[in-house]
């Protein structure tokens, strides 16, 4: 049980017998929550993500500075009492830009993940439910798309159609749905053979109703786990694009933009790179641990590795 501190708990930790007696009527989700709480790293990740999110949402309102408010007389100053994380070369407060950038990065992460989630779940569910030739064709298409250099297309899209933030997360979402489709398909194939689906069929329910009302709720676990793991991947892609100058554009702020700016000026002003880099890495770290912890807590067989 102490193995909970490792990112890959041994198999026996997954079959943890619960301390509570069964009469208390623990639901599946309650059990999962208890298991998650025992996993220190995942629990830490949950708290960290929560705190960072709240700070990014609330923080900019509490700060006396605006994210694009310049103070050219001050210029770049190191961390001090007035500007806790220092200022950039235009005298903008780094803390407020960091928090504001966090909003953008997290928003892109959530929105693009939602796009990927929607496409992937519908595509995977249809392929898995119908099976046969339609499934073979759909999954072969996914195989082919897997082998395409997608980041290159995202770069082209961003260059050609202007650096528009809506387009940014649609493009990222369109890239990241493939794995979700594969996972959902294999889960649907397993669930659709179960008896309650047979029962639903014999009650004369339509296919759409069976897929969305009966099958999908039963594979929510893997979907939640993989969604949690998609968010950091998407945020990484956004930051990658912004780092190349193709994503979010200054004076707007995002973690990618701040890291790019910091990397250019780190020689003299180390804080411009260190704080954004640390915050971004900590967030990705926490989300990855949370996803791993959820995978163990919801007892999802490792489908990613």
């Amino acid at each position, binding site marked *: 049980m102490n193995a909970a501190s490792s990112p890959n708990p041994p198999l026996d930790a997954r079959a943890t017998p619960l301390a509570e007696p069964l009469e208390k009527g623990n639901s599946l989700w309650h059990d999962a929550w208890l298991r998650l709480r025992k996993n220190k790293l995942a629990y830490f990740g949950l708290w960290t993500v929560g705190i960072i999110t709240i700070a990014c949402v609330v923080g900019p309102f509490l700060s006396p500075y605006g994210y694009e408010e310049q103070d050219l007389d001050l210029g770049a100053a190191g961390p001090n009492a007035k500007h806790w994380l220092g200022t950039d070369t235009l005298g903008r407060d780094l803390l407020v830009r960091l928090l504001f950038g966090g909003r953008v990065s997290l928003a892109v992460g959530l929105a693009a993940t939602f796009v990927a989630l929607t496409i992937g779940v519908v595509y995977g569910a249809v392929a898995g439910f119908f099976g046969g030739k339609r499934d073979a064709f759909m999954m072969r298409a996914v195989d082919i798309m897997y082998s395409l250099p997608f980041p290159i297309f995202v770069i082209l899209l961003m260059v050609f159609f202007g650096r528009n933030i809506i387009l940014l997360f649609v493009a990222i979402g369109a890239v990241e749905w493939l794995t979700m489709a594969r996972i959902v398909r294999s889960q649907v194939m397993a669930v659709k053979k179960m008896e309650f689906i047979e029962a639903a069929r014999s009650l004369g329910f339509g296919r759409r109703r069976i897929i969305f009302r009966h099958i999908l709720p039963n594979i929510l676990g893997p979907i939640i786990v993989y969604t949690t793991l998609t968010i950091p991947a998407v945020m990484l892609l956004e930051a*990658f694009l912004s780092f190349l100058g193709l994503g979010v554009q200054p004076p707007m702020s995002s973690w990618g933009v701040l890291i790019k700016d910091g990397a250019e000026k780190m020689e003299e002003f180390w804080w411009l790179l260190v704080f954004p880099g640390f915050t971004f890495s900590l967030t990705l*770290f926490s989300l990855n641990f949370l996803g791993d912890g959820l995978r163990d807590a919801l007892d999802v067989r490792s489908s990613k590795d």
Partner: protein
Amino acid sequence: MLRFITSRFLQSLVALFLVISATFFMVRFVPGGPFTAEKAVTPEILRNLEAHYGLDKPLWRQYLDYLGSLAQGDLGPSFKYPNRTVNEILLDKLPVSAELGLLSLGVALVLGITLGTIAAVRRNSWADYMASSFGMIGISVPTFVVGPLLVLVAAIHLGWFNASGWYTPMDRVLPALVLGIAYAAPISRLTRGGMLEVLHQDFIRTARAKGASEFRVVTRHALRGGLLPVVSYLGPAVAGILTGSFVIETIFQIPGIGREFVNSAFNRDYTLVLGTVILYAVLIMALNLVVDVVQAWMNPKVRLDA
């Protein structure tokens, strides 16, 4: 086996054709052309330029022309570098990117497999925790954070390396390390998982019973099976290293294809963009094919009828 390779090869050709067509038309349907940036181009000169590059012909004609010359291995002239063909430009930059990619892949494999194996053999020891933490850090801390930080510490403060450039062998160290570490992390996790599964199996017990040393058991008997997950990851890893080199080439100012690609997209150098995309696509698909074959060879259980 031959049937397997042929079917995968045909599949790659279809995908390649899709990539070429999609890129060709995407590039053409965007606002702005390669000559819009140039100041004071009279309509007459513009017409001449467009006639010179065949841009005045109907689109379908341009498309067929392009496919025709592509079949002969000709990627056409560059729009932005007069008198240079795309073939020349790419051949010029390819060795640099290839060297960076191979060095990084070497770092990733050596570091990842070693750490992963040690973690599996000494499971739940401090070495295992160290290796697992390294894996998580490597996955979570992006190259564009690690890269500049390493430059700041090792190049600027300690003065061990040049902060940028691609001249001496020492200039290869930091870029290859940064890009390699990013892929060593997932490889170490996959190796650990694969090795843990294999080390429980009967043939390992047999090898031990026959008195083979622990080192020999691990390296000769367990690794072949334990590395299967790593092999299947190599396709995505190589693709990632190729695109990851965009960032690395930008950070370290390395004159490779990645930087050229980003620039050519900004310049709307149609033929250079297309040529680069085709080159990447061919590389990625060829490597995926190799990976599939190696995987089939290593594990007879992988079905060959795909």
